[in-house]
């Protein structure tokens, strides 16, 4: 079997429940050239070094093959300009810095930590509302509504609008999916349409905040000034909040669901967490290594020919970094296929690394820690009703679509 078909198999939906044996095979050749010219990198040190390599670009304009092929990402051709995740420095740095001003240190060092109480309340409310414990879906009843509620509050997006933006976001996330065949052009058109709609929706909110600013990030992005960086244009506020809205709820859902699934498969860890909520800290780190929500980073490129592991990646080639595979590279982690929250150093690639490392990491960590420790504490004798569960389509943002659970009751 050729290496090229390995990537196809990974992308193939039937392998979604367990792509890890395929990743192991992929690592036999750390840098693989796909027939369409894309390069796939699957080993830890190589991915890590590329994430810190200033010759690697995230800007689709540097791709030599314009992103109209079947691996393309919709954002590149949307009516809206790209958000900072798809830009290089200095524009990337400037936009990310401005967004960070209202999110994290040094300007808002306590913002995330101060949300602790509020987050705990949301978690409690959702668990209280589970209802019939003989069968419930963790995704619909908990993993999805929790981060959505949080990101809505943080950004200042009305929670009631969720059904509206959910369709656009779903379409966009589907567009992220590297699938082959069918009507690519049509799929891109639909994605772009969704992104534009989402942008227009947010533009409406921006307009409101401009007139009447509140305490939320959208208001701060709209009205704030950022020292030497100046302030964001309306378009920049929109692209940034589209990014934060999507990234802020599409990843944590999977982290929490993958987390609960993993814990139920490792009852001794779940038991320890029940007794010691602080154990959630290393558990979440190990989860980010073992079952990262973002499995691969597609469509980076190189500004010049770059040699890696004896392979020359030519200027402009599309570069795919399979972080979930790097996370299980035996050259980096001993016993990588074992879920072990007690392992010494967990410097995983679950949040990426380098300048594009996950902007929302502190929030995602806190959400997952709170969610898992509370679920462990309050669900009485929880059981998986289906294993493996039904997965979502996406190979990039991998996680169960549903997670059917039962328990004997909800503890106070």
């Amino acid at each position, binding site marked *: 079997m050729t290496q090229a078909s390995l990537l196809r198999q990974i992308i193939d939906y039937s392998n979604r429940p367990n792509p890890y044996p395929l990743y192991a095979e992929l690592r036999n050749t750390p840098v693989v050239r796909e027939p369409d010219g894309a390069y796939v990198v699957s080993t830890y040190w190589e991915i890590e*070094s590329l994430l*810190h*390599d*200033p*010759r*690697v*670009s995230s800007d689709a304009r540097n791709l030599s093959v314009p992103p109209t092929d079947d691996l393309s990402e919709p954002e590149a051709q949307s009516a809206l300009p790209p958000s900072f995740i798809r830009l*290089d*420095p*200095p524009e990337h*740095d400037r936009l990310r810095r401005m967004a960070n001003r209202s999110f994290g240190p040094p300007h808002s060092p306590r913002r995330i930590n101060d949300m602790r109480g509020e987050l705990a309340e949301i978690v409690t409310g959702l668990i209280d509302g589970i209802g019939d414990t003989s069968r419930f879906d963790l995704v619909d009843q908990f993993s999805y509504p929790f981060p959505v509620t949080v990101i809505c509050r943080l950004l200042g997006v009305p929670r009631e609008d969720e059904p509206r933006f959910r369709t656009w976001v779903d379409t966009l996330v589907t567009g992220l999916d590297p699938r082959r065949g069918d009507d690519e052009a049509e799929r891109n058109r639909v994605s772009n349409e969704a992104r534009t709609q989402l942008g227009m929706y947010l533009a409406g909110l921006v307009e409101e905040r401009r007139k009447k600013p509140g305490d939320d990030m959208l208001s701060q992005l709209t009205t704030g000034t950022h020292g*030497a960086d100046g302030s964001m244009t309306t378009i920049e506020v929109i692209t940034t909040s589209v990014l934060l809205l999507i990234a802020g709820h599409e990843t944590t859902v999977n982290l929490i669901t993958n987390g609960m699934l993993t814990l139920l498969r490792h009852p001794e860890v779940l038991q320890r967490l029940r007794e010691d909520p602080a154990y959630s800290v290393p558990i979440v780190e190990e989860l980010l290594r073992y079952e990262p929500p973002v499995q691969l980073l597609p469509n980076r490129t190189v*500004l*010049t020919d770059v040699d890696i592991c004896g392979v020359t990646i030519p200027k402009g080639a599309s570069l795919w970094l399979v972080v979930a595979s790097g996370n299980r590279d035996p050259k980096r982690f001993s016993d990588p296929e074992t879920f072990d929250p007690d392992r010494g150093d967990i410097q995983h690639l679950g949040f990426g690394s*380098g*300048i594009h*490392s996950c902007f929302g990491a502190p929030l995602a960590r806190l959400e997952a820690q709170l969610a898992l420790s509370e679920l462990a504490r309050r669900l009485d004798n929880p059981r998986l009703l289906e294993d493996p569960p039904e997965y979502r389509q996406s190979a990039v943002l991998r996680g169960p679509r549903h997670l059917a659970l039962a328990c004997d009751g909800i503890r106070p």
Partner: protein
Amino acid sequence: MSVDGFLQRLRSEGRIVVVGASLAGLRAAETLRAEGFTGTLTLIGDEPYEPYDRPPLSKQVLLGRASAEHTALPRRRAIDAEWRLGVPATGLDMAAKRVRLADGDEVPYDRLLIATGVRARPWPNEAEAGLDGVFVLRTRDDAVALQRRLAEEPRRVFVIGAGFTGSEIASACHERGLPVTVAERGDAPLVGALGGVVGRVAAELQREHGVDLRTGVMVTRLEGDSAGRVRAAHLSDGSEVEADVVVVSLGATRNTEWLAGSGLGAGPRGIACDAGCRAFDIRGIVTDDIFVAGDVARSPHPLFGYQFLSLEHWGNAVSQAEIAAHNMLSDSVDRRPHMWVPAFWSSQFGVSIKSVGVPSMGTEILIAQGALAERRFTGVYGYQGRVIGAVTFDQTRWLEFYQHLIETTAPFPPPFPTVDRRSDGQRPLPADFPDPSVPTHGPTVTLSGYSPADRRITFTPGRH
């Protein structure tokens, strides 16, 4: 007795003595235990405190954000040591394998680790140095005393020397809202460590933050009032600056005096050792039982032409201590070389500065990313056509890449484009280090020495 048998006995019931109970000493002790050493472990330190961390002293502690008492180094594991704190080692008898202490005690050893670090170079005029209000900053006590005085809101602070520590002190004063004057003999702050191109950025940074920066001048005299309090500093350009606090930040002196006459290759430039941290004696022969680590050590680095590097870097102290401890318990084939690539960080005036490699060896600099004017850039240093060092101002995340270029002796200037290349980065500039024969303080790296294959490797006293 076989060598194996000896090592086995050493591991289980040997006596290991560590002199210098700070960063390197502690990390070495922890590594010894981690590697299975179960014998007697003695830590000797002249300061009365358990090991603490120094970098915060010139940063958070001076700002009053952290108290000096809370800088204790986190422990990686229990070390079950006999602590001899508050008592300096005063001598070494290599033949009898004993360390002499100031209180008259003698401590025998099978293996000795010397990690006595450096101390602040005092103001050379003793009477002036003794004026009330004149400080240095190296220890916890120094930091407490200076912090307390800054809290009394002096009318002006005068810092002598704009190396890393001096610049950090100026930054802390500025942040506390205190007027501060900095006098520097070189043309710019940090010029000895990072060269003139970067030094000019540091100078702008200071001036824009309201620091009264005087460069190209020397302080000739400190003047006290009748009560013995410092009141002014006199400069070589004839000017006078009134200040009620003076911080002397003129670099460091190695703590090696206690080894005088011991026969160990210890002198003003430190203790020479091989890449495995074994000390040289004055005949240039490597010892088997005496090891060195941290600021006090000078060791040859293969990557930098086997030059003997002495580094006053936190990360170096940790990694060298770990290697020394490992080698103390290992026979020759299992020993490891200390091949740490120098790396340093500093934060001042809101900018995070990091460097890797040995920038001060560089003759040219290329601003590979970012822009000097924005004070957000990555500078790459070239030496004889290869990359030898790199520095970042608020661009830490790229540093690892440049470290790899240094490690692989990549060509300079790097022949490829990078993201964020600007007009500054179109061609290399002279790095503009001061003439090495003109002493400046501040460089944290000093270079000297010869190839190990060269018979002249015997210890030679320093130039200064």
